[in-house]
């Protein structure tokens, strides 16, 4: 049997892609499950499970028919009932899903494989939502395994995708074994990122968790594994020396480093304090750690992923002017009274740990009194959920990274969501930004959207709920005999080939 061994970034928190926002689950999810629509290289949703679909004149009624030959791994055919149950689960679990749900009047089965979606108002992004490829992904599950309600964790990952999860051989926390679904009927179109054919090439794929980055590099160089999904940047030189190995990025859009304020408590409830810090954020510092080589990192003073359609430099002068004096002056103007501020630092995430160190030094350089609160990731998440002031265990700043799909436009932009208490940790609150966001969602032309995106960034940089600290790409490494590695917004493993012999 042909086996492809791929080392994932980290262990999967769950085999249920609807329960976690961790990106790594899509590596597994795209293999086993499928979505109704799927993104192509141009970022356009293309039908995947859906064979044909129609939209009514008024743009309110979508009718979808599943393509024939779809079947779950347990042999049951995929039906409208499965789709409806799965979408309902998705609506309940995903913020963007919720947006669609709010515009949804009715979701009903028309036939065994035909179903209809009636909106209450036109929504141009409907198919984009159904073809969403970042967590939480609207995968279609058998109704049977999600019968426990949206919060019940799926224990039996049965999908309709090209690979079948092998529970017997899987060792949780170590290796997930996937076997090619011989009954799978792919689409006729060739593979185009997630769109087109999903046909599996190798017989068996093993998704491995290797805790030590050097160990995975050793394993790859020794030919014991075929691919490392994302390498430790410091091992680049070593890997490049090996002629049998390709090192390249699979996600050219990359990730953005975010410095996130707690907008609710002092001192960062005062925009002046936030802006003062933004002035001294030196993206080159962060990128030096994040990017293996300068060419893999990019100073990006936009709230949208640079090089994406909505990128703009409006308001960007607020970030990284590196004018210490001005920053100090602004801080002095603010309400900051010298109380130590808490910067959360995860000790088990080397990259984030380093960014926190840099941020702390920058904060100190303008007169902040900083306490670095080091803890493991789990404790950090726990503490991050506390909204109160630092005296009550709260926090003031944390660092993280967000992938392009969480950044590209005002609609998906995670840190730019200013929905107060319901927004992402940091809880910024701004009506104006919210209004622009809603307008963007309802806008119909690209022109209009572009304009709104500009406005959005201008507003965000004004209130500065977070500071972007640079953009970089992750590098993957694989054996030269692994072929068909996709470089795009998503990079599924099912299409990978392995040439026999050398």
């Amino acid at each position, binding site marked *: 049997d042909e086996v492809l061994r791929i080392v994932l970034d980290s262990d999967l928190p769950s085999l249920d892609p609807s329960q976690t*926002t961790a990106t790594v689950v899509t590596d597994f999810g795209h293999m086993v499950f499928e979505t109704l629509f799927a993104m192509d290289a141009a970022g356009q949703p293309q039908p995947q499970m859906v064979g044909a679909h129609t939209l009514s004149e008024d743009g309110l009624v979508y009718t979808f028919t599943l393509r024939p030959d779809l079947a779950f791994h347990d042999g049951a055919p995929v039906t409208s009932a499965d789709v409806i149950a799965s979408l309902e689960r998705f609506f309940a679990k995903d913020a963007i899903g919720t947006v669609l749900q709010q515009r949804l009047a009715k979701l009903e089965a028309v036939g065994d494989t035909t179903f209809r979606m009636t909106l209450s108002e036109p929504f141009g992004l409907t198919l984009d939502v159904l073809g969403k490829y970042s967590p939480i992904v609207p995968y279609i599950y058998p109704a049977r395994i999600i019968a426990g309600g949206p919060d019940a964790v799926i224990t039996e990952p049965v999908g309709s995708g090209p690979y079948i999860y092998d529970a017997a051989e899987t060792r949780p926390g170590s290796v997930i074994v996937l076997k090619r679904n011989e009954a799978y009927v792919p689409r006729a179109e060739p593979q185009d990122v997630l769109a087109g054919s999903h046909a599996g090439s190798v017989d068996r794929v093993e998704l491995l968790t290797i805790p030590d980055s050097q160990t995975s590099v050793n394993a790859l160089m020794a030919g014991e594994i075929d691919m490392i999904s994302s390498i430790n940047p410091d091992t680049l030189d070593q890997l490049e020396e090996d002629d049998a190995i390709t090192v390249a990025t699979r996600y050219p859009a990359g990730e953005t480093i975010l410095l996130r304020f707690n907008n609710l408590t002092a001192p960062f409830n005062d925009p002046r304090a936030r802006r003062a810090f933004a002035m001294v954020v030196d993206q080159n510092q962060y990128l030096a750690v994040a990017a293996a080589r300068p060419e893999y990192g990019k100073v990006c003073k936009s709230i949208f992923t640079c090089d994406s359609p909505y990128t703009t430099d409006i308001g960007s002068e607020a970030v990284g002017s590196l004018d210490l004096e001005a920053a100090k002056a602004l801080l002095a103007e603010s309400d900051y009274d010298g109380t130590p501020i808490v910067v959360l630092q995860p000790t088990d995430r080397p990259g984030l740990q380093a960014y926190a160190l840099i941020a702390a030094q920058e904060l100190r350089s303008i007169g902040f009194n900083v306490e670095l609160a080091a803890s493991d990731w789990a404790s950090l998440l726990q503490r991050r959920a506390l909204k109160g002031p630092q005296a009550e265990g709260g926090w003031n700043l944390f660092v993280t990274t967000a992938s392009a799909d969480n950044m590209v436009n005002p609609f998906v932009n*995670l840190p730019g969501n200013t929905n107060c208490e319901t927004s992402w940790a940091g809880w910024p609150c701004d009506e104006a930004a919210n209004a622009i966001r809603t307008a963007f969602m309802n806008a119909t032309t690209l022109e209009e959207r572009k304009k709104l995106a500009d406005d959005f960034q201008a507003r965000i940089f004004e209130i500065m709920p977070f500071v972007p600290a640079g953009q970089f790409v992750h590098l993957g490494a694989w054996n030269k005999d692994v072929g068909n590695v996709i470089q795009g917004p998503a990079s599924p493993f099912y299409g990978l080939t392995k040439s026999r012999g050398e």
Partner: protein
Amino acid sequence: MGFILKRLISALPVVPIVAVVIFLLIHAGGSDPARILAGDTATEASVEALRRHLALDRPLGEQFLAWLVQLGKGDLGTSIFYQRPVAEIILGRTGATAALALSAIFLSVLIGVPAGAYAAMRLGKPVDKAVTFFSALGFSMPIFLVAYSMVYLFSLKLGWLPAQGYAPPSNGLWAFVRSLALPALTLSIFNIALFARVSRATVSDMLKQDFIRTAAAKGASPRRILFVHAMRAAAVPIVTLIGTTFAGLIGGVVVTESLFNIPGLGRLVTEAILKRDFPIIQGLVLMTSVLYVMINLCIDLICAALDPRLAR
């Protein structure tokens, strides 16, 4: 028979003590697996829903009771993250750790004990000095330096052994042995040092005993004196050490398992802790404490067999 029973009964209270202590300890931090499961960008509402669904919102006492009741039915519970029975997960991980720990102990005994015993025979001589020095050195080598260097040499340069991973015996004995060679050796460095040290001390004590002189008076050769008399009599402390080392290795293999990507209990413990997968932690601790009690019992029995004076 009374002896065994006595040991068993005196050892049993360990398990409940451990169960309570560990339950309190791991919950004292107040961290929440639901939050980790839900991921970095999850909304508060979905974390809350998940928590409720996993029954993590209930009072601690109630959770403990529920766990006990479940335990009473012979069920260790289900992993929060893997959604599989804890017993199955632990069992799936036990083989690798057991193989690793056993082979490390095998190596340690095979190398450490003779080295220590030989040093004891040559007390104060250069050989002894060398053994003392190297065993002190063995204690002080950062384990991953050892690991990386060996991987570099034996896997990447010479290509003799796999760089990582674990092949269960079902994959063939040869693959199994090869996959264990480097990690076991790495893990052994420290233990070889430990065994050499302890053996040197106990054997040199034994060699001072009168019965050694008796053996010499019988005309026994130095080798015979060492192996038949001194080592046999020194076996009790060494066997005891084997027992405690083995018990300690279950938790002490973390680093080695991480460095060689071996799916064992050490890694499972750490991962479970870092993710707060409470059922796994509880199950593991329960298992290790039962194991510990059993190892102690075995050690006591072996020691009693080796030295019948102890059986009283």
